[in-house]
């Protein structure tokens, strides 16, 4: 679409992002539990804790699989597997806890709570609110529920794990808020997409129509007028050639619609390169018309620091065009030439004497050259009074 609005209309990107987030969240809680449990092996002398750790590994695998599967049925199965692993861990952990001398912890013991948190996230990436809550609820009853069973089996004092209960309720609220918000956003996005597509269609048809009208004006209309003013008699060679050209083009109007260099605005061509898009949009808003060409996508491969320096340098170059060149058009060409990337900003304006100490020369030297040299690049400036200006910037590519 014209506006370059990328949106997660069907929620797929959000779902995958939530799966990643859930994986890390569960991973940290499980890792912390593994480390703490591992510490207790030498302290308590109970080597069977290792079996409990195996249970935690099953929990982790089950949770990650449930988060990433697209099938609701499989997600249910993986959730149950994760809960089974949690039950195994709880059996061992509670068994050791009641045998260790000293006060016996209750079933809301933090070592049992942390893997319970991990299990609760299984539903967050499901593709519908109902499935999400169903998975979370299954995890809540089968996870902490089985932990309570294991604690009871091992003779551990039972206690309601309030933080886990609150976490379940909070997760339900979070997921619900996210889903309702996403639904509203999707509605708005559909509206914006429709508007942008309609605009795109109108603009394209307008261009084709304008192009066709312009061609007719310059050729057929011109030739008809020429015939109207010509002397009667045999057609001249020029008339014959003109008529042949008109008839040929009218037989295949695709030739008329092809207009080099006018396939879209600079903004639209830069859809895939946010860094350059911002520069070009700012320049366009200042009144410049920018043509962009070359291997533009290669800019995305640059390191962040290089991109920032390049953006600022280009800003300065375009500002110079606006302030000093006397023209309102500039061109940006991107050329990938490993190990560097070259970007040339040129205009056909008034130019200047590179060696002279003018504001323009000093500005380019300080704001462009120094900035680019700092990141390991180089700048060449070609300019002559009355013959335009070209600034050739070379920056290192990420791998170099």
């Amino acid at each position, binding site marked *: *679409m014209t*506006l*370059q*609005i*990328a*949106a*997660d209309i069907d929620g797929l990107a*959000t779902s*995958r*992002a939530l799966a990643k*987030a859930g994986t890390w*969240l569960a*991973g*940290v*809680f499980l890792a*912390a539990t593994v*480390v703490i449990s591992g*510490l207790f092996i030498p302290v308590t002398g109970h080597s069977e804790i290792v079996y409990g750790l195996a249970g935690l590994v099953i929990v982790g695998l089950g949770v990650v699989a449930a988060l990433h599967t697209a099938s609701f049925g499989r997600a249910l199965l993986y959730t149950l597997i994760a809960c089974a692993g949690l039950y195994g861990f709880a059996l061992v952990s509670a068994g050791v806890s009641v045998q260790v001398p000293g006060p016996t912890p209750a079933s809301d013991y933090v070592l049992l*709570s*942390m893997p319970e*948190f991990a299990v609760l996230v299984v539903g967050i990436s499901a593709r519908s609110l109902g499935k999400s809550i169903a998975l979370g609820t299954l995890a809540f009853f089968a996870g902490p529920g089985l932990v309570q069973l294991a604690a009871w089996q091992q003779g551990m004092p039972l206690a309601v794990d309030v933080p886990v209960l609150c976490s379940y309720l*909070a997760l339900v*609220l*979070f997921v619900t808020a*996210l889903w309702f918000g996403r639904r509203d*956003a999707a509605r708005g996005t559909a*509206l914006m997409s429709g508007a942008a*597509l309609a605009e*795109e269609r109108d*603009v394209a048809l*307008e261009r084709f129509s*304008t192009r*066709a009208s312009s061609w*007719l004006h310059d050729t057929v*209309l011109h*030739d*008809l007028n020429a*015939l109207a003013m010509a002397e*009667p008699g045999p*057609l001249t060679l020029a008339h014959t050639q003109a*008529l042949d050209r008109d008839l040929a083009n*009218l037989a295949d109007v*695709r030739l008329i*619609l092809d207009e080099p260099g006018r396939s*879209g*605005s600079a*903004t639209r061509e830069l*859809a*895939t390169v*946010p*860094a350059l898009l911002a520069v070009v949009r700012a320049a*366009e*808003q*200042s009144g410049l018309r920018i043509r*962009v060409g070359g291997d533009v*996508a290669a800019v*995305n*491969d640059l390191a962040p620091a290089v991109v*920032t320096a390049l953006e600022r340098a280009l800003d300065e170059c375009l500002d110079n065009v606006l302030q000093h060149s006397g023209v309102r058009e500039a061109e940006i060409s991107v050329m990938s030439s490993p190990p560097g990337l070259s970007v040339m900003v040129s205009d056909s304006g008034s130019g200047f004497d590179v060696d002279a100490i003018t504001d323009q020369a000093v500005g380019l030297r300080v704001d462009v050259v120094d900035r680019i040299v700092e990141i390991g690049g180089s700048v060449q400036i070609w300019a002559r009074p009355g013959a335009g200006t070209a600034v050739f910037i070379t920056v290192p590519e*990420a791998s170099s």
Partner: protein
Amino acid sequence: MRVGRRSRRHVRLPSGVTALELDPLAAISARGFLVVVAGVSIACAIGLTIATASQVSSWPLAIAALVSLAVGFGWFIRSAFRFDLGVTNDRFAISFAVIAIAAVLNSLSCLGTNAFVRDDWGLITLGLVLMAAAPFRTSAELGTYTAVSTVLATMLALLHTFMSATADVPRLVVVLVAVAPPLAFGLGAMAYARQLLRGIYSERLRQAEEREQQLDELRRTFVDDDVVGEIGSLRAEIVPFLARVRGQGVLTVDDRVRAGVLAQNLQTAISESRRLDSLGDHVGELIDESDLAPRLHEDDRATLRALLIALNASEHARPDDITLELIEGESSRFGVVRCASADVRALRADVLPFIRMTRLMFRRAEEQSAGTVLLVQFDIDRLG
């Protein structure tokens, strides 16, 4: 520009860009999520403070912690609902700092009497605020905040191991229990932000290719529908005339006259070719004395069109009450969208994402409510 296969296989995410910058409308869901997270955090803090009242050694600090938490989330929510730049890194840094202060105050409020570090709500809310910030900020920035949270949690946990009655629990265990929530939520937030950006950016690349295909299809439709041939009497009269004259190789007096008539007809038809002015379809009144609408930049026109469609779609607006005025002065160009409504606040809430989009596309755009009218004014800096 077509996206090369190399670029599709190795999508390098643009640096310093947030998911919301690529998909501003996702702010709707991000704001809703933030409000719920804030509510849950504050409820959790109040609940835990009451439930663990026996561990509180300083009630002034405990209350100050709660107030600080509310202020931190309040600032965050205010930033998220602001019309201008939204949640910038600076604004989020303020929220995070205030919530971090709340965490410290919460911890200090039970210094010496803290039985279980896991009951400290400050450590959980530090993680929750990072989760809520995931759509608003970049993965790298969230990484920094996660590191700060982890260090803070470690320091507070160590402080308690020295000052409170947790001496029988190994120090490393106490630290791990304290660090786990902020670290888990922080890493989760980083992964969420990065993966969401990747998904949306990939969608953007896909759309760019689709746009090129749509342009080709439109071009083909234009040709197939013989729109060129339909201009004036081209196909019906001019082409046969040109073909006949070319075939006979001689121009007669009648042909000269006929050529003159056809030229005049064609001239009229070309002049009457419809110019782009579809913005008027979405408003009750379009005031455009300088004929600016067809000359607007296509992105700006699409933005305005979306805003007007959103206004039309709102139950709080009447289509006849929507006015678009485009004005070109000697040194400036600007436009105003006016929409009368019995409930301007509700109307504004309905179209706020689109007003934000206007702010993104135009260098200067402002909105205000004047009585029963919602006004959106914007500068026009570029023409198509």
